[in-house]
C-alpha cells in the first residue's frame, strides 16, 4: 500500500446519496483477476452512453472539475462488498472521498487501499459542495496527521481509527501485522471451545 500524505487539491462534486458500489464499478467489470485498470470503468454507466461516448452531464466528464478528492452525498459505498470499488476510485486518481456517511465494508476496503474516507457533518458537506460547485478551483486540504479538512475559511476535524491512521501514514497493511501473530493465533486455536 502507498503511504498516504497530506492532500491539497481541487475536488469533484457528486451530490447524490446512497451511491452503491454497483454504480462505482458495475458487476460486468469484476471479471478481471488482477487489481489494475479499474479506473477506466469507474462510474461506467453514469459516465458513458451505451455506445461508449461520454455523457456530457456527468461530473467526471466536466473538465471544470478535477482533483484527487471526490465529494459525495451521504451513505457512499453501500451495497456489494466488492473491493473493486475502492480500486477503481484509487486507480482513477482519487485519494480522498468526502461524505457525511460511509457504508461499513466500503470504508474498510478504502482504508486497506490507501484511499481515505473523510466523514464530515451534513452542514460541512453542504458548504463544501456549494463552494466547489460555485468555484471549481476551490482548494481543499486534507491533513491526516492532524485529522483536519479545510477549505476557504472553514475547517472540521474528522475521525479515523488510530491503528488505521498509522497504517495509512506508514503504508503498512493488516497482513503485515497478522502474519506476525501466528503463535498467538495457534494458542487461541488450542484453547478455543468453538467447534
Amino acid at each position, binding site marked *: 500500500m502507498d503511504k498516504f500524505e497530506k492532500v491539497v487539491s481541487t475536488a469533484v462534486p457528486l*451530490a*447524490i*446519496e*446512497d451511491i*452503491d458500489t*454497483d*454504480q462505482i464499478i*458495475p*458487476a*460486468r467489470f*469484476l*471479471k*478481471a*483477476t*488482477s*487489481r489494475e485498470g479499474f479506473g477506466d470503468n469507474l462510474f461506467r*454507466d453514469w459516465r458513458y452512453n*451505451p455506445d461508449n461516448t461520454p455523457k456530457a452531464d456527468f461530473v467526471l466528464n466536466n473538465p471544470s472539475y478535477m482533483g484527487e478528492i471526490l465529494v459525495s*452525498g*451521504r*451513505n457512499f459505498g*453501500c*451495497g*456489494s*462488498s*466488492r*473491493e*473493486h470499488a*475502492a480500486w477503481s476510485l484509487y486507480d482513477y486518481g482519487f485519494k480522498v472521498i468526502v461524505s457525511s*456517511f*460511509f*457504508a*461499513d*465494508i466500503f470504508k*474498510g*476496503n478504502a482504508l*486497506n*487501499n490507501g484511499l481515505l474516507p473523510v466523514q464530515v457533518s451534513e452542514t460541512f458537506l453542504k458548504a463544501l459542495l456549494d463552494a466547489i460547485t460555485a468555484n471549481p478551483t476551490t482548494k481543499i486540504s486534507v491533513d491526516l496527521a492532524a485529522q483536519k479538512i479545510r477549505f476557504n475559511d472553514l475547517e472540521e476535524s474528522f475521525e479515523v*481509527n*488510530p*491503528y*488505521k491512521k498509522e497504517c495509512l501514514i506508514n503504508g503498512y*497493511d*493488516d*497482513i503485515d*501485522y*497478522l*502474519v506476525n*501473530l*501466528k503463535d*498467538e*493465533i495457534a494458542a*487461541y*486455536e488450542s484453547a*478455543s*471451545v*468453538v*467447534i
Partner: protein
Amino acid sequence: MGKTLFDKVWDAHVVKSLVGDIDVLYIDRHLIHEVTSPQAFSELEKRGLSLFRKEKMVATPDHNIPTKDQHLPIKEALSRHQVDTLLANCEKHNVELYGLGHPFQGIVHVIGPELGITLPGRTMVCGDSHTSTHGAFGAVAFGIGTSQVAQVMASQCLLQSRPKTMRVTVDGELNKGVLAKDIILYIIAQLTAAGGTGYFIEYAGSTIERLSMEARMTICNMSIEMGARGGMIAPDQTTFDYIQGREFAPKGEAFESAVEYWKTLHTDADAVFDKEYHFDATDIEPMITYGTNPGMGIKITKAVPSHLGEGSVESYNKSLDYMGFKPGESLLGKPINHVFIGSCTNSRIEDLRIVADYVKGKKKAENVSAMIVPGSKQVEKQAIAEGLDQVLLEAGFELREPGCSACLGMNEDKVPTGEYCVSTSNRNFEGRQGPGARTLLASPLVAAVTAIEGRIVDITKHLN
C-alpha cells in the same frame, strides 16, 4: 450485565484486542468464490505466504457460471478465465472446491447451510456482502473485501472494529400471503438503506421464532441492505433439527455436546443493545420495491411516496426517473415482462415449493419470461425428486441450473435495458440485473403471482 448473542459469539473469537477498539478476530470458516478471490491468492503469492488453515476454507464458483448447459465449457471468455483461475488456485493450494458438475456446487450462501458448514457460534466470512445469510444459525457472519480475504488466507484472522448492537423484534401473526421476504423488505423500508450501518442486528420476537431456517436465512441475507455488518438469530430447536444429519455437521456425541453449547447462545435477559426496534407482524403486508435501493419499498397496494423522509429530492427523483415511476402513482396494473426467482435470498427448496404450489395448474402470462434458478445442485435435485420441475414446466417457467444468475448480471442471464423485472433477489440498484434493467424486489409468492398475471396485482386477492 448480561451479554447479547452477538457479544457471546464475538468474545469467544477475540485472539487479542488492539488499542483503538480493534480486535484480532478468529474466523472459523472462510467461503470463497471466483470473483473476490483471485487478487487475494495473487497477494499471498507476491508476499511468499501460504494458506494458514486451508482446511477451514471452502470454494465454489457461483457468480459467473451459466445456468444452462453447465456440462459445456463456459462460453464467455472472461467468465471462463475467472472460474478457471479459482479452480487452478484451489488445486495449487489444496482448497476444498465444489466446481461445476460437483453434487455440492451452488451459491456459496446456499451450500454453507445445506452442507452443515454453517453452525451456531461460528465466525464466518466471505468476499461477498450476503455472507450475513449465515447469521440465521446464530453465527457471526459478514462480507469482506478482497484484501481481507487475503488476510484470512494468511492468518485465519481479521482486524475488526467491534460493531454496535441492534435488536429488531417482530411479534405477532403474519397476514395472508406474507413471507420472510416481506418482513425484511418492510424492516428495511422502515429503517432505510443506511439505518443499520455500524450495527450487527439480532432479529427476535415470536414472529421470527416461528420461521423456518430457510425463511430466517432470507431475513439475515438482506441485513446488509440496510447497511448492517450482519444479522443473526438465536439458535433454537428449529436450528438444531435443520443441522442434524447434514454432511459436515457434528455427528453423534459431538452433535449432542455441540447442542449443549449452542443452547447457551442467546441474548441474556438483562443484556442491553445500542438500539432497539419493535414491529408488529400484523402491520406487514406483501411488499414490493419501486426505487433503486432496497429501502425504497412499499406495501404492494400503496402508492409510490412523494418523497422519502430523508435525503435530497434530486436523488429521490433520479431514482424514480430510472425506474420510470412517478411520485403518488400506484404500481398495481403495471405490466411486467420478466420474473426472476433465485439468488442467495430466495433460491432454496422452500422458495421453489412456494412458487410451484401457486403456479400448479396455471399458465404464465404470454408477455412474461419466467426464470427460476435453484441455489444449488442439491436444491435442484430435490426439486426434481419432488416433481416441482414438471409443475413449473407446465406453467411455462424455465427451471435453470444453479448459480447467482440474474441477480447481478455477471453471467448471461440479464434483463434488457428499460424492461421491468419482478425479482426475488436482494438488490434493485441501477443496472443490477443488466445495464438499464429495472428491478422490483419481491417475495417468491409475489413473483409467482406476477408471472401468472403478467402485471403487478394485489396478490392477496389471488390466494385461497
